[in-house]
């Protein structure tokens, strides 16, 4: 005896049809993003890799597979030194950004204020203006005749003839501007992970005699770590290869690894081979770091709200 479903359709065939539809839906839904990734991410990277091995070249003529550019890069203290300098700058930026973003996210998520979404909107308001404009605004603030130096001269801390010139075109300027730019980006994932925190755990901690500080250290902080790590990576990955901000406010001392990649592709005489090596090395390091940190990340905790 066949089990009948709605409108007299056998239930067994109905569920099979649903399963088939699901089976077809998955590749259908995934197809586009996968194709997108392959065409616009995997293929370009493969092309860059071919450039790095001199299989492809910007210039016509005979070319063949060689590891020369890779060998030169790995033996170059200059390029590796610049990479290390960029990593250090990026680490400083990421740490400072997390340290600044955490209290903001904590307040928004746990203070119980009714206006938290309005405040969140205020936090991300700078995104409504162009990135370039936001960075250039810092030139007006940090320059010799900028807002800060003018203020210092006005209060008599510095004379107008001797402004603090290290504020602009320096490593400090790059770190400061990158920190400013990335704080909202980091506040968001931390906010999300704190929002999803089970408040009963905090109540339980208090009931068991934990002070607010202890509850924070033993409950809130560990449970929000995925958001913190995600935020840290959100900053570290793009800033280690950053080149726009250093080229605008970095000067000679704020020159970063990303600037070198950009310059190798277009300044002096195009050297796409070395440029590709530098770009791929950055990609490999970033991928390795992401893979390492991904273990500590629980996507649901970062994204759930």
């Amino acid at each position, binding site marked *: 005896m066949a089990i009948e479903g709605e409108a007299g359709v056998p239930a067994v065939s109905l569920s099979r049809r649903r399963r088939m539809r699901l089976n077809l839906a998955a590749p259908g839904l995934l197809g586009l993003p996968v194709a997108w990734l392959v065409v616009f991410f995997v293929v370009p990277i493969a092309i860059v890799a071919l450039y790095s091995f001199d299989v492809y070249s*910007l*210039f*016509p003529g005979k070319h063949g597979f060689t590891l020369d550019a890779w060998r030169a890069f790995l033996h*170059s203290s*200059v*390029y590796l*030194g*610049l990479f290390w300098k960029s990593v250090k700058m990026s680490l400083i930026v990421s740490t400072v950004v997390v340290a600044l973003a955490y209290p903001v996210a904590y307040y928004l998520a746990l203070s119980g204020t009714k206006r938290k979404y309005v405040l969140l909107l205020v936090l991300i308001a700078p995104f409504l203006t162009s990135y370039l404009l936001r960075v250039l605004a810092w*030139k007006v603030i940090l*320059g*010799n*005749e900028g807002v800060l130096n003018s203020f210092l001269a006005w209060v008599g801390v510095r004379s107008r003839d001797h402004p603090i*010139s*290290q504020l*602009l*075109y320096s490593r400090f300027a790059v770190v400061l501007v990158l920190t400013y730019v990335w704080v909202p980006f980091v506040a968001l994932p931390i906010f999300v992970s704190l929002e999803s925190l089970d408040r009963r755990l905090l109540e339980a901690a208090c009931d068991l005699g934990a002070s607010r500080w202890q509850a924070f250290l033993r409950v809130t902080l560990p449970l929000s770590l995925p958001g913190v790590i995600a935020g840290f990576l959100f900053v570290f990955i793009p800033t280690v290869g950053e080149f726009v901000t250093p080229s605008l406010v970095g*000067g*000679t001392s704020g*020159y970063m690894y990303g*600037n*070198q990649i950009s*310059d*190798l*592709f*277009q*300044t*002096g*005489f*195009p*050297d*796409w081979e*070395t440029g590709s090596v530098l770009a791929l090395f950055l990609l490999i390091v970033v991928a390795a770091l992401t893979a390492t940190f991904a273990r500590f990340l629980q996507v649901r905790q970062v994204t759930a709200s």
Partner: protein
Amino acid sequence: MQEDRDVLERRLSREDLLKLAAATGGAGLLAGRTGIADAARAHFAAESGRLQVLDWAGYGNDGGQAMFAAYVKKYPKNKPQFTYMTNEADALAKIHAGLKPDIFRPYVGWTKYFATSGLVQPWDPKLISNFKYLNPFMVKAGQYNGKQYGIPEDWGLDAILYRSDKVKPKAKSFSLLFDERYKGKIAWYDDITMIQIAGLYLGFKNCWNQTDAQLKQSQNLLKSKKHLVRVIWSSETNLWEAFGSGEVWIAYAWPNDWVQMKKKGLRVVYMRPKEKPLAWVGMFMLLKGSPRPKLAHAYVDAWSSTKSAKWLEDNYGYGHANTRARPSSSDLLRVLQLSNPQAVALPNAYLDRDIPRRALYARMWEQVKAA
């Protein structure tokens, strides 16, 4: 009798045939030539679309309109469309990556490189009515193997700009770019020209073709002095901003920068170093296979006119290859020696020239920045 007539007719007809053949051949030849001319005319007449120009910032619709106004007036339907280049290497990368401009503007040191690259074709100077007014010395610098690959237009110097109210140079020398007294107040230029300048400062005879040891010395000098440098500028607006706001007092600069800083009311000197400045001449080049050669020639003709040249000198402070142009400013006339037809040559300056090991120079310069 009949036989004689037949022979005569036969003979006449052979002559006639020969004449006819000759006439037909000549006519055919003529017709052929006319056909080629017609075809060329038709080809030129068929040139369509907007002229594609790859040029430096400031020379397009971003302020340089006066220099090609005559072209726009003549071809209002084929207005130029600009893509901007930051330097020749950038242009080279763009062209190799698939950009297809009709014309672009490298500087004189790249003439040989591009002429031998297979990317460009020679101009037909007969199609440029203002060609006869161009400085013969610069015209010659645009030739390779007797063919005119570059049409000279703007020219200027690589020298030093400094604030006379802040800086007291010990000598008229490139040494000012390496002066420890002005740490944090110096700007260099982001190009391999810096390797050449280091070579000149170190007294190398041929700064365009330095030996390995000389290159190393030049690189070491730049590396050891980099800590003095606040900014390495790649576009003039960067320099104007840094110099104008007092962030830097000394800079590698072009004549236009001197003009612009004077306009800002700064007390500036454009120093001609004792090592002699490097001189550059902008050369319009025609891309091989350009579908708009007639429009390209017309565009270059507009740029070469006396009116455009004077405008360039008055507004940008550069020299122009048109020998009939004179700027309104006597200062500029004096500093650039615009009345001297060989102002860009010795004993005034070193005209920039081909760098055989350009790729190596570039790598060494990149290492200076990365160090």
